């Protein structure tokens, strides 16, 4: 029974003991069907309990989920031991957390889709609100004609203002994060920046808007409402998110990589730009996307900085501008025709849907960027 190669099979070796019928490793393990049985039981009891208190879907779901959670954890605990019971409990809790998070998402998306789809058409997408008055709406309601006027001007405004805000915040935010992680370690200044960046996240958006308006008012006179002022206001809101998320991502880039690069005689700034940032880019990209998403839906700071317009304005350095959120806001709060609010409501929800589509596209773009530069994980 000495030598044995795979090719000779294991005949020469010690005869392998037959697999035991009762696998002791599998001892005290719930069979696969058990969990489905518990789920079925929970649903039945949940339905019964809910019926007792006057059946409704919410209480049925809540009762069933609770019963399932408790029963599954307790039974797993009893059969497989406490640790696995705990593991099961947390696993179900985490699944539950996900489901709970999806409910409002679906509800919001459904609401927006349901109310926004009717207004989504080429006319809405490619026309501004220039010249659309209450009378026009009244007329179209009276005639049962399609709603006139669209969000094109607001789309343009949203894109331009967000673009400028991103152009300001991303370099500033990323450079700051680079300073914090790569240069400022342990310095008082970096501690101060870290701290105040956190504080900055708490600036109410309206305050950011007022600040930007006051700041530009000082420079350009009191009538200074235009796209770029709004972009600055949004930057104040965006920067902390960019800094924080970039900082966190840079921090978890292993030092080994920096050292490897230094040891090749690569300068620090090149190391940062070509090794550190690319390694963290996926996280940074989603942080930036998050930051954009955070401000693209802002209303209050835009109102006081960019004003409101119903015609198309492509210039962020002159004249007022609308964005989708301000458009939505005013369509809802001051309908074009107070007596016939339906056209305005339809435009508002269609604009909301459009905004969501835009952010979705942005998100996809960020993911694309991330996947192009991200660490190649495939071993």
């Amino acid at each position, binding site marked *: 029974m000495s030598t044995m190669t795979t090719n000779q099979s294991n005949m020469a070796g010690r005869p392998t003991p037959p697999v035991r019928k009762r696998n002791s490793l599998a001892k005290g393990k719930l069979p696969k069907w058990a969990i489905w049985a518990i789920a079925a039981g929970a649903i039945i009891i949940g339905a019964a309990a809910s019926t007792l208190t006057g059946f409704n879907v919410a209480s049925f779901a809540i009762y069933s989920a609770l019963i399932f959670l408790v029963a599954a954890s307790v039974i797993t605990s009893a059969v497989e031991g406490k640790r696995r019971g705990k593991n099961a409990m947390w696993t179900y809790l985490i699944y539950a957390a996900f489901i709970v998070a999806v409910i409002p998402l679906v509800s919001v998306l459904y609401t927006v889709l349901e109310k926004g789809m009717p207004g989504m058409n080429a006319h809405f997408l490619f026309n501004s609100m220039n*010249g*659309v*008055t209450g*009378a026009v709406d009244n007329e179209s309601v009276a005639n049962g004609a399609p709603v*006139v006027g669209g969000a094109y001007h607001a789309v343009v405004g949203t894109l331009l203002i967000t673009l400028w805000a991103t152009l300001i915040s991303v370099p500033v935010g990323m450079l700051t994060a680079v300073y914090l992680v790569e240069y400022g370690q342990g310095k008082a200044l970096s501690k101060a920046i870290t701290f105040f960046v956190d504080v900055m996240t708490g600036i109410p958006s309206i305050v950011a808007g007022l600040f930007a308006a006051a700041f530009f*008012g000082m420079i350009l006179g*009191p009538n200074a409402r235009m796209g770029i002022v709004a972009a600055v206001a949004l930057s104040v809101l965006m920067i902390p998110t960019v800094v924080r998320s970039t900082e966190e991502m840079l921090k978890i880039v292993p030092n080994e990589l920096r050292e490897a690069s230094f040891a090749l005689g690569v300068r620090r700034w090149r190391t940062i730009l070509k090794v550190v940032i690319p390694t963290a880019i996926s996280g940074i990209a989603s942080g930036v996307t998050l930051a954009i998403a955070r401000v693209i839906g802002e209303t209050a700071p835009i*109102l006081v900085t960019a004003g409101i317009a119903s015609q198309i304005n492509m210039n962020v350095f002159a004249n007022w501008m609308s964005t989708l959120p301000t458009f939505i806001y005013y369509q809802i709060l001051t309908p074009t025709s107070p*007596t016939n*609010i339906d056209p305005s409501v339809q435009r508002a929800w269609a604009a909301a849907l459009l905004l969501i589509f835009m952010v979705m596209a942005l998100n996809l773009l960020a993911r694309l960027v991330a996947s192009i530069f991200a660490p190649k994980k495939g071993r």
Partner: protein
Amino acid sequence: SDSPTAAAGSEGAETSAASGVTGTLTGIGASSQNSAMEAWSTGFKAANPDANVQYSPDGSGAGREAFLAGGAQFAGSDAYLKEDEAAKAKEVCGPEGAFNIPAYVSPIAIAFNLEGVEEINMDAATIAKVFKKEITKWNDEAIAKQNPDVELPDTAITVVHRNDESGTTENFVEYLKAAAADVWTYDVSGDWPSDIQSENAKGTSGVVSTTTSTDGAITYADFSAVGNLSTVNVKVGEDYTKISAEAAAKALETATPVEGAAENDLALDLERDTSESGTYPIVLVSYHIFCSSYKDQATADLVKAFGNYVISEDGQKTAQASAGNAPISAAIAEKAKKSIDGITVAE
């Protein structure tokens, strides 16, 4: 495209407002004027293709604040300039200061949602008690007495008020204070009295939609915006007045100029406790505030042209068609035109 209405082929430049002015006029102010302002701006632009009027409905206070800081050439406001504001106006407008022109009158409806009930009569004291939550059921004795013909259900009354500071609230409580002083003991302000804890919502559209979705709810809101809600007939003198544009316009005629106002200033104090029947006393007068003099000729011309367009018959009709407000009377329009024509250029 920047002319979505082109296909609809509405409106031409056939209006009389053409005066060949150019430039951009900026106004900031009351959100309630937004709809009318869109109509005015569109109408004015149609007549003056080289002119542009932009209006930001930030709110009356914000509008006056911006106007006083020189951030807007005119303000739209649910209230005329207060004394200290008028004084401050001299800084931007020169020694003559600024003046108020009524541009927009809108009746404030007391609107409710009660199944099967279309119309209800109430006197001022009853209204005050309802909104003070002293009367809590729709079939309360006090209401029933005034509505012998209406079958009132035993539904709880849910008062819905504005949670943002608002000109509508201010005018409504001003009416309650004037017409039912012994019931309504709160100070008049744009904020709802904080002692009355009740349902509330933001903006006219907010209170209307909350009321629409709650059976037994009652609120106060711009008449143009109440939609399907029923309205309360308010007791004036011996009769109950049903809300209407005409009844509201009448309220303006009984109003008196504000004490100590300059000659060109048309700020009005409304007589809320009038007993003249056929008058609907709960109205909101929204003003345009202009400077008495502007720095350059072009601006002055633009302001004059626009100001005159707004008060012109054409302008008032356009606004009414779009925003559903009540027009100002011819007499007031006449006075207003005089004031506006008096705008000068600072030397």
